[in-house]
């Protein structure tokens, strides 16, 4: 547009040139906006590049034609205005220079010869060049527009990817969190209801245990770690409640290292092991069994053992279901402590299974 402006300034008065160019720009904006609306409606952004290039070229030619025709109309209008102001206008632009010393007859002949140079084919070619140059404008306009759109889209895709991976991580974490089995809660409530008549003191105790257990499970979400002391208090609440369901089928005792009470552990980690022990061993044994919870502290590690009556089943059958709780706990340990923490479940001897957790003590020198 600027080049055409300068070209015009050379030929016509600056005021008219500016007016004509403002109109050109206005037409250009109008045409490209119509084009943009169309592109949006047809959703060209999503097209593959080869298809897009063909379409853009074609569209640019059409736009160039529209722009060219409108522009020529403007030029004709501008020229006719100029001619009204100065009838010799055309002559001053396209005619030969007025040369002194040539007689008017000669001058007229030269003028006619000059005008005769503007044959229809030459006019046609110049019109065509008009179209082509406008077409080139629109091609570059499209190139910029689509380049911007592609960048924008690439950025959106990137953002979308980030969001997705963040939500996947969130889901993973919340899936890893242990929660109290609803089946257990309602069984406990039902048992307590029965206890109210048979042993009201025990019923009242059981309500306290259930409350503590629920409170812990609601609150523990906020903490990454709790003291072993607190964790074991919840385990005791849980075993107390299981004992009213399982009665004489469940025996349990604790063998704890006093020094380990304040060591921090991931919440529900021992509870999950104990729940697993009940679900997969005591529950399946008509005559019940025993659960022993042990803690041992040494210089580098806290060791926690949950032992129960029974044997690990071979890899077949239901063993996979047991895996979920254990694998989740293992994953939580890995996220918190890296490779230093371990969780293993193995047969201790012919009638006991032992789940052991090893948690590294925090380096106090740091």
């Amino acid at each position, binding site marked *: 547009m600027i080049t055409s402006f300068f070209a015009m300034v050379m030929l016509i008065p600056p005021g008219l040139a500016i007016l004509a160019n403002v109109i050109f720009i206005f037409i250009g904006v109008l045409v490209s906006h119509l084009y943009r609306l169309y592109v949006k409606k047809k959703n060209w952004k999503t097209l593959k590049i080869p298809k897009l290039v063909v379409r853009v070229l074609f569209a640019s030619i059409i736009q160039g034609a529209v722009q060219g025709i409108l522009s020529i109309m403007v030029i004709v209008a501008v020229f006719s205005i100029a001619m009204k102001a100065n009838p010799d206008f055309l002559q001053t632009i396209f005619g030969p220079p007025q040369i002194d010393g040539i007689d008017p007859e000669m001058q007229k002949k030269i003028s006619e010869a000059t005008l005769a140079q503007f044959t229809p084919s030459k006019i046609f070619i110049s019109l065509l060049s008009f179209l082509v140059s406008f077409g080139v404008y629109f091609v570059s306009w499209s190139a910029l527009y689509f380049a911007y759109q592609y960048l924008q889209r690439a950025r959106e895709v990137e953002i979308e990817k980030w969001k997705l991976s963040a939500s996947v991580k969130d889901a993973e974490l919340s899936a890893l969190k242990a929660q109290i089995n609803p089946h257990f809660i309602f*069984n406990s409530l039902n048992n307590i209801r029965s206890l109210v008549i*048979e042993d009201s003191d025990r019923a009242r105790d059981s309500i306290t245990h259930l409350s503590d257990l629920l409170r812990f499970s609601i609150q523990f979400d906020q903490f990454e770690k709790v003291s072993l002391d607190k964790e074991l208090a919840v385990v005791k609440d849980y075993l107390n409640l299981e004992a009213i369901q399982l009665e004489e089928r469940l025996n349990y005792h604790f063998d704890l290292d006093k020094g380990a009470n304040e060591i921090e552990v991931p919440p529900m980690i021992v509870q999950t092991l104990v729940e697993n022990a009940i679900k997969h061993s005591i529950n*399946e044994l008509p005559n019940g069994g025993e659960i022993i919870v042990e803690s041992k502290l040494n210089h580098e590690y806290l060791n926690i053992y949950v032992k129960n009556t029974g044997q690990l089943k071979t890899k077949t059958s239901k063993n996979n279901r047991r895996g979920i709780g254990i694998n989740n706990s293992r994953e939580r340990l890995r996220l918190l402590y890296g490779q230093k923490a371990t969780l293993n479940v193995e047969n201790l001897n012919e009638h006991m299974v032992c789940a052991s957790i090893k948690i590294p003590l925090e380096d106090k020198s740091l």
Partner: protein
Amino acid sequence: MKTLVVDDSRLARNELKRLLKEFDKVQIAGEAASVDEALEKVVELKPDLIFLDIQMPGKNGFQLLEELESVPEVIFSTAYDEHALKAFEYNALDYLVKPVQKERLAGAVAKVFDKIQKKKEQAENEDDKLTINDQVFVKDGEKCWFVQLSEIRLFEVSGNYTTVYFDNSKPMITRTLNYLESRLDDKTFFRANRQQIINLKWIERIEPWFSGSLRIYLKGGEEIDVSRRQTLKFKDIMSF
């Protein structure tokens, strides 16, 4: 109604028994803490109704029903087990969630009582065999049904199993056709050939077939060829 309470938790059984005391129609005949114990009690006591916990150590409530030849009325009780009960979407089935609401218990008991009364009116001449008023428990993969024998059109051999045709369903059961023949009432169920037992009440029409045999069309659309030997027997049964 003679009633058996099956639940692994003693406290839960006691709670239910206390609740049931208020219903005159219900007599607690016994209780069981496991499926194996329940199996013995069912044979011994022949209860009209079982309150059945689903999750129990060892075998679960459904396994008890699968092992029973003919199942009495069942009201399931469960602490939290919606998934298991979804298996029953095709059957009107009563279940209670623990702790049990008294009103819901009353509703379930009344419904079962009506059903049992109706059954007793229909079945006057009971012998040892399964009659059309008996119901069986059928489990096929994830789905479960309580089916009255009167609704079954056809039993058919499929390998080591037997396919049961009723309504629009064709589940398989593990009993053999020979066993079923020995247990089913021969006034209603007829062994048409080596592969099939049909329910005579479901016959739509009968056509003579090759060399003196018969073809039977059932109301469900099945076509049964009666073997020549059985054709004689069939004519014998059907003639006056």
